């Protein structure tokens, strides 16, 4: 009887295996024990690789693909997505929740718009805009009839609504009086927030100390329609400056810096 292969054979997906290995080593093995004991960071929490991309090693060169779309269907899909945005069917946080909820191996494996296609179909079915069976049937129809014309039907008003949306945007700024906790020049520590379905806190900056560079005027709302780790209400946002070597102590000592914008919920006094 032939033995079944291990679940993930490195020779089939070396890039992904290397990624996961380096990721596990970074957080399980190389973190400083006293720091882990103090904060409980990593190791004792569930986590999503998608929240912790910054700093992963062993990935090989960047694919410098300068095109926006590499297949014609991607432009068509992007336009369908834009229509969903412009008519209020969904917003960025909905898409990001789906991307962050993906199997991390698939997240690395599949091209950007392939992931969007899966996410858009799932969302439309979950929210009742389309049924799974009609998507499957119509896909099969166009697979069998690739040159078949699209139905000459639709809502003519929607095109202008979508263009208007591109120029209107969805400004998260709220012109309200705030009492920011921190001021420019303050040292702040990035909180190690509990795991959430969706976050805007990059994992590699958790527990790191930086300096407030700018306190942005007013307040910003992220989203109140998806589950997050504390950014569902309008709040001050800060530009924080880090010395890159304060984030990773094992890199050459240069004058390089890193800036990141934080919602106030993610910071504490250092």
């Amino acid at each position: 009887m032939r033995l079944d292969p291990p679940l993930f054979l490195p020779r089939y997906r070396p890039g992904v295996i290397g990624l996961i290995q380096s990721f596990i080593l970074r957080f399980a093995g190389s973190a400083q024990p006293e720091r882990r004991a103090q904060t409980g960071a990593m190791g004792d929490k569930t986590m999503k690789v998608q929240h912790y991309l910054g700093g992963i090693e062993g990935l090989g060169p960047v694919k410098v693909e300068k095109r926006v779309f590499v297949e014609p269907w991607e432009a068509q899909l992007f336009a369908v997505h834009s229509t969903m945005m412009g008519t209020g069917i969904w917003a960025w946080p909905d898409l990001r929740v789906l991307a962050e909820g993906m199997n991390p191996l698939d997240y690395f494996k599949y091209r950007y718009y392939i992931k969007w296609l899966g996410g858009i179909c799932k969302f439309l079915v979950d929210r009742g805009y389309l049924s799974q069976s009609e998507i499957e049937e119509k896909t099969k129809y166009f697979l069998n009839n690739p040159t078949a014309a699209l139905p000459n039907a639709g809502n003519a008003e929607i095109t202008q609504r979508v263009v208007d949306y591109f120029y209107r945007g969805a400004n998260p700024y709220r012109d309200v009086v705030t009492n920011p906790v921190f001021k420019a020049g303050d040292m702040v520590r990035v909180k190690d927030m509990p795991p959430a379905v969706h976050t805007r806190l990059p994992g590699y900056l958790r527990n790191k100390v930086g300096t407030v560079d700018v306190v942005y005027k007013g307040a910003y709302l992220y989203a109140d329609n998806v589950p997050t780790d504390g950014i569902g209400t309008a709040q001050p946002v800060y530009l924080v400056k880090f010395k890159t070597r304060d984030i990773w102590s094992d890199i050459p000592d240069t004058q390089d810096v890193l800036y990141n914008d934080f919602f106030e919920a993610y910071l504490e006094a250092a």
Partner: protein
Amino acid sequence: MSDDHHHDEDGHHHHLRESETYYAARTKALESLFREKGLIGTDTVDRVINFFEHDMGPFNGAKVVAKAWTDPAFKERLLADANKGIAELGLKDGIEGENLRVVENSEDVHNIVCCTLCSCWPWPLLGLPPYWFKDPVFRARVVREPRAVLSDFGVTLPEDKSIAVWDSSAQVRYFVIPQRPADTDGWSEEKLAALVSTEAMQGLALVSA
């Protein structure tokens, strides 16, 4: 999302569901169903594609860079308030650019923009992000080893120049004014703008004449 993808155990066989033909048919199915249900117009897809080819694209950013290179007072206003600055040139802001910030490369500092959590990008000035910006490998590496990533793009900086990486995690979208190349004195804004690539306006290329 992974439900659409199937592998056999040796990983060599690719199911029909992983082919470009399949993705194309499924996307066409979505537009077809949207049309049937009145969720999209017959010309919406063409208009959206045309919009990012002609109205909102890197040609806007290049115009801003050329103006900033030739008009120091404009550049100061742009650095102070980017949304007001681009409006002076008749450019509209909008989606993914409601709150823009412009940073400037100099002899001392080189700026690079990224988004480690997703793909935040200044659409009004650059249109849609190219694939490299969305690549998890770029996003993972650029914050820790920006010089190595620049090398993947064919860019080498002087050792003593510091790098500032801007990770777009909240609501501001960043845009880089690259350094003006030497030997371009007296050039028109139009001629200067033609030198400026998308990559240069996020810090992943230099501009040469």
